[in-house]
């Protein structure tokens, strides 16, 4: 008999070592069957362990999950992914220049947000994490509006109260971002329960990282979704890294994150998160399942966090630099581009022209946003705003503190 020993998840590769993604369970494009969205949960068990993929290595769409989108629709998707990327790169640079205090890029996982937004109805409610800026961009929130939030300037939607990237967009049905992890998961379930109570056909969708599945709120969300068959899509973006800890520390060894769904009693799908078509199709399937009363789906989107966790992080300290180049699911924008070229609907020169146009769009928006001020220059928000919205009506002690601040300014 051997003694029990504490298991410590083994990280595949550290800096200086060769990247090793042999732990990622892959499946060829088109290999996974597509059941009717009304199937019993048990019939999704295999889907939760396999990998739903549409785009193959050559950029050809294959198999039953192909959503058969028009080239025009795909070009819109490509544009939104690239716009997200160009926006991210520019904002990261402005942080390095000291114009904004903090930033989080979604580099390498843009399809997760952009394709899901395309597959959902505009009236569906989205509960993003801080790496889902693609949802805001795909829903048409203006870049200037997002930039003003990042700058905490006079047009800041959060009135200077929130850290950069903690956006919201009530008009576009996107919930307010929290810095606390996974809190939006049970909230999305509750939102969708309210829709069911009111007899609406609207559904909710939420996103968290695989690291956050460790949080109790993830488990609360799954249980409530199961108990009430809530019309909600619960997305786990498995980008392999939670700051310095790889997905094994969230419990990703041996079992997929999607398998938690059928484990609790809701449908589960494991999806190539860098495949625009697969993300679209899986979201569409889960949305249909929710709308016809069959309840929630847990979707694991397998992707890779190609950049740092945030501008405060340096991933070269804990993982090999070359990992993204070796990532078996590639780059979502490159893969959709390749598919469009393969279809004859796109070319390298069109791609280059689009990138140049997007750079220009972002640069123009940045100039406009800067005109509304920054933390250090130009017009500034009135500090009195600090005291409003703490309560609906300002209590007396806050009114007095506000007066004191003004008097002493």
């Amino acid at each position, binding site marked *: 008999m051997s003694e029990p020993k504490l298991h410590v998840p083994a990280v595949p590769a550290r800096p200086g070592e060769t990247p090793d993604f042999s732990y990622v369970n892959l499946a060829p494009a088109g290999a996974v069957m597509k059941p009717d969205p009304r199937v019993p949960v048990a019939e999704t068990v295999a889907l939760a362990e396999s990998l739903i993929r549409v785009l193959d290595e050559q950029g050809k769409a294959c198999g039953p999950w192909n959503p058969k989108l028009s080239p025009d629709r795909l070009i819109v998707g490509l544009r939104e992914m690239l716009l997200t990327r160009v926006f991210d790169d520019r904002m990261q640079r402005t942080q390095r220049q000291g114009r904004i205090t903090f930033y989080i890029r979604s580099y390498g996982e843009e399809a997760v947000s952009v394709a899901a937004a395309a597959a959902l109805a505009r009236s569906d409610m989205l509960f993003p994490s801080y790496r889902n800026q693609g949802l805001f961009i795909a829903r048409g929130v203006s870049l200037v509006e997002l930039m003003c939030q990042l700058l905490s300037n006079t047009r800041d939607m959060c009135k200077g109260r929130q850290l950069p990237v903690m956006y919201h967009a009530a008009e576009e049905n996107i919930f307010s971002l929290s*810095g606390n992890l996974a809190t939006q998961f049970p909230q999305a379930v509750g939102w969708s329960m309210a829709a069911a109570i009111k007899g609406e056909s609207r559904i909710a969708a939420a996103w968290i990282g695989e690291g956050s599945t460790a*949080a109790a709120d993830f488990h609360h969300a799954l249980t409530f979704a199961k108990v009430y068959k809530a019309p909600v899509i619960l997305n786990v973006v498995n980008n392999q890294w939670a700051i*310095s800890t790889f997905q094994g520390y969230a419990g990703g060894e041996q079992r997929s994150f999607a398998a938690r769904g059928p484990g609790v009693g809701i449908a589960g799908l494991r999806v190539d998160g860098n495949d625009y078509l697969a993300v679209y199709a899986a979201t569409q399937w889960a949305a249909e399942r929710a709308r016809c009363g069959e309840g929630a789906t847990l979707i694991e989107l397998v992707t890779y966090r190609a950049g740092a966790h945030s501008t405060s992080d340096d991933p070269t300290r*804990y993982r090999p630099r070359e990992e993204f180049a070796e990532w078996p699911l590639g780059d979502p924008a490159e893969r959709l581009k390749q598919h469009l070229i393969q279809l004859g609907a796109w070319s390298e020169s069109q791609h280059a022209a689009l990138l140049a146009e997007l750079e220009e769009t972002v640069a123009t928006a940045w100039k406009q946003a800067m005109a509304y001020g920054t933390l250090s220059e130009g017009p500034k928000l009135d500090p009195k705003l600090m005291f409003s919205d703490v309560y609906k009506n300002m209590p007396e002690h*806050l009114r007095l503190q506000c007066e004191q601040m003004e008097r*002493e300014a």
Partner: protein
Amino acid sequence: MTIMNMVQALNSAMDVMLARDSSVVVLGEDVGYFGGVFRVTDALQKKYGAHRVLDTPIAEGGIVGAAIGMGVNGLRPVAEIQFADYIYPAYDQIVSELARLRYRSAAAFTAPLTIRTPCGGGIRGGQTHSQSPEGVFAHVSGIKTVMPSNPYDAKGLLIAAIEDDDPVIFFEPKRLYNGPFDGDPERPAQAWTNHPMAEVPEGYYRLEIGKAAVARAGGAVTMVTYGTMVHVCIAAAEAEGIDAEVIDIRSMMPLDIDTIAQSVEKTGRCLIAHEATRFAGFGAELSASIQEHCFWSLEAPIARVAGWDTPYPHAFEWHYFPGKQRVRRSLRQLMQIEG
């Protein structure tokens, strides 16, 4: 003696304790291989192994719950909560379990935990990276709450916390990690290098939890404070040219009321300062206790300077932070009152 900043001093405390006591384990998010997002646990996993310095899943309730179980089973865990703002998922485990385990089991079970967590503002962290929740925990019977203001105290108190058989929540003012801060954001950041409290023994030593320190001696007024505000209060007193005695309480519970009362009885005036919001903040307990002990010595009402009663705002950080100007103004007003 070596010159250490607060990060190095805290690291040294854990290093010393991991070496001295095989029951000590360190756990938390990113604390192992990476060495913590503020580098406080740097190199400890390499030195002591992945069974004693554990990277954990992102679940504060899980970290504290598991640490309680380890503590019950003979270990002496030092758990890190990455930011005090993220401690609330562990609130039930701390308040309903950790704090009352000894009491409810008539001491049949105990868990000697230390929970380290960076707190406070001044780093443009917004509402989720700036909070000072010490008052929330000081209110809970069964746990001790500590907040050092310099490297020497940080190491000595952290060692004492780890050796303490009662649970301790150890708040680390993150603005002080790399240098003292007098509350003026316009001044270039200072390093600990030339500060007398940055001279830290490399080996083992401990300070008693529950003893306040006189951070600046004086006779005209007593300033009672802790954490980052110790430095702000000293700077404010010096800028005003007031002979203030600045008392760094160092722990909220136990509270060294004797040292505070002795000073207030001498000076007859008292100003309390903390970063946390004012309403029902720890300053309220301080004010009540000082009034109970020193009522007949007081020549003026006790003054309080604290964060405004709002969440911590990103853009208005320096309007919110109770900096040098606000402390100076309050100090002037307090000194003008006729005794």
